[in-house]
């Protein structure tokens, strides 16, 4: 439905009948093949013109009672201008009931609060109001009939609704091993690849969303593995094949050396650089360096299996450093995993912790999210999520890039267990969406890895 014609017609008819004092049965809509009422004044109503007063618009909302394929309700709105002609026939030639006077009573009623409320209920507004003109004429060339005509614009609301879906695609990705369809470990979580949402730092170099990451990496898989720095395995649970190495990150392999590289932000710099040994998993003997932006949102994933030993004192899983500010991803001796964000002078600092024991020899997914738009720092793992920590006090980390280090690199005394690291998103909207769906994202990542 666009304009609610029945309601509008009824409201207009009631207005004319009440204001003019002419019986309702003698106020008629034209173009119905009507016969003239018996002797006495009567009124004809007719819409002469109908147009839009501007460009219509639409809004979306979640359906109150969604059904498959109809989860979203789209409302279309617009304003319309209807030009109404009102003609009074057979009024008196003089006095209070002359045709012009009858229509003038309708004009006067427009100022009535009661009439205004009736029009408001019918979603009718008053636009340009024309003059009342006498148009008296003879009938059958022998009878002179006093008549008057009045035209005015009415502003009407047009509205229509339709249902739609926000499911981009549905696919079968596996067979449930058991009858438990709600098992989160096997649950398939659908994500929508978001559109480009942010301005790239340097076009052509630094991907700004999952699609660009995937394109840069020539990755044929899902966005969740947008840009793997390492697709290695050392303990059998992260899949690896030579083909995956070659197609994984679009890496530039220096055949004469031992480094894999991806161009980075600065001339001659590399966003990714790590040793060939690291291809089999970052560990104490390997290292990798990645450029990170500290002043923008970023989401990345670490995947590792933490094996408890008597000497475990915790690891620095990765460290992004620029002078003294940056991020530290650590696992504590208790098995709690934390992401620390430090300001330019290290104080203040904010830490987000998933306080669960990850030293259980089971593979874990760690989703680290720095959402600069929402000013939150948050961690998600398959064992839980940290609170969303406010990093407003960190302020703008006035640096261009950090170098994210994994393994023994730089001059940092740190160790990392064999692990896999991936950029998931750097676009503001992507990061925000991942944070809002953190638990589901972890489940999806585990699914893709095959856990």
């Amino acid at each position, binding site marked *: 439905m666009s304009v609610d014609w029945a309601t509008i017609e009824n409201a207009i008819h*009631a207005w004319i009948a009440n204001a003019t004092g002419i019986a309702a049965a003698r*106020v008629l*809509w034209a173009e119905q093949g009507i*016969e003239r009422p018996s002797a006495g004044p009567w009124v004809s109503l007719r819409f002469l013109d109908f147009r839009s007063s501007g460009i219509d618009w639409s809004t979306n909302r979640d359906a109150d009672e969604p059904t498959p394929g109809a989860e979203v309700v789209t409302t279309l709105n617009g304003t319309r201008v209807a030009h109404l002609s009102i003609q009074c026939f057979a009024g008196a030639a003089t006095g209070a009931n002359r045709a012009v006077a009858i229509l003038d009573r309708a004009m006067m009623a427009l100022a009535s609060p009661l009439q205004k409320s009736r029009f408001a209920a019918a979603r009718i507004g008053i636009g340009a109001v024309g003059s009342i003109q006498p148009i008296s004429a003879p009938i059958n060339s022998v009878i002179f009939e006093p008549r008057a005509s009045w035209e005015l614009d009415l502003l009407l609301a047009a509205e229509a609704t339709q249902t739609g879906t926000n499911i981009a695609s549905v696919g079968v990705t596996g067979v449930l091993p058991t009858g438990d369809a709600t098992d989160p470990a096997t649950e398939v979580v659908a994500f929508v690849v978001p559109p480009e949402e942010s301005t790239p730092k340097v076009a052509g170099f630094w991907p700004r969303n999952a699609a660009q990451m995937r394109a840069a990496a020539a990755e044929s898989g899902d966005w969740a593995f947008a840009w793997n720095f390492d697709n290695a395995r050392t303990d059998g649970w992260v899949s690896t094949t030579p083909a995956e190495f070659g197609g994984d990150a679009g890496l530039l392999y220096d055949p004469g050396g031992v480094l894999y590289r991806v161009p980075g932000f600065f001339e001659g710099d590399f966003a990714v650089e790590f040793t060939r040994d690291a291809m089999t998993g970052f560990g104490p003997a390997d290292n990798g360096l990645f450029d990170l932006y500290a002043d923008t949102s970023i989401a990345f994933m670490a995947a590792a299996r933490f094996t408890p030993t008597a000497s475990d004192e915790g690891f620095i899983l990765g460290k992004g450093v620029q002078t003294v500010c940056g991020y530290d991803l650590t696992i504590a001796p208790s098995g709690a995993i934390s992401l620390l964000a430090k300001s330019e002078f290290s104080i203040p600092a904010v830490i987000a912790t998933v306080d669960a024991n990850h030293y259980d020899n089971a593979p874990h997914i760690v989703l680290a999210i720095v959402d600069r738009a929402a000013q939150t720092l948050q961690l998600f793992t398959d064992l839980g999520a940290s609170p969303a920590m406010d990093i407003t006090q960190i302020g703008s980390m006035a640096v261009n890039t950090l170098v994210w280090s994994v393994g023994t690199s730089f001059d940092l005394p740190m160790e990392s267990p064999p692990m896999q690291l991936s950029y998931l998103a750097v676009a503001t909207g992507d990061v925000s969406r991942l944070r809002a769906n953190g638990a589901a994202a972890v489940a999806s990542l585990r699914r893709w890895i095959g856990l």
Partner: protein
Amino acid sequence: MSVALTIAALKTGDYTVTRTAASSTDGHGRIVPGATSTFSIEAVIEPATERDLRLLPEAMHTQDLRLVFTVTELRGEPRPDSIAIDGEAWQVVGRPQRWTAFGATHTEAIIARTVIP
């Protein structure tokens, strides 16, 4: 011989006429059509002449007109009678003329085909 007898002698057939009663309104200015009823007439129906065409209202245009002679009163505007000819509806145009002469009264009406195939 009266015109009535002439019509009876020269009739082209018996025809069914549909008549619509006066309409009412729904209280909001919309017409509620009146009920319809039917009756049969004897009539002479022949092509309209050029003179008949000149009697049509201003701007009246139709592709098929005929002239009806019957002793039964027919009604025109605003609720014109409809006459079925070979299964097709023909509607009275304007106001039929009613003549009384030679001891009888008859009706002359122009009818127009309502649906042109």
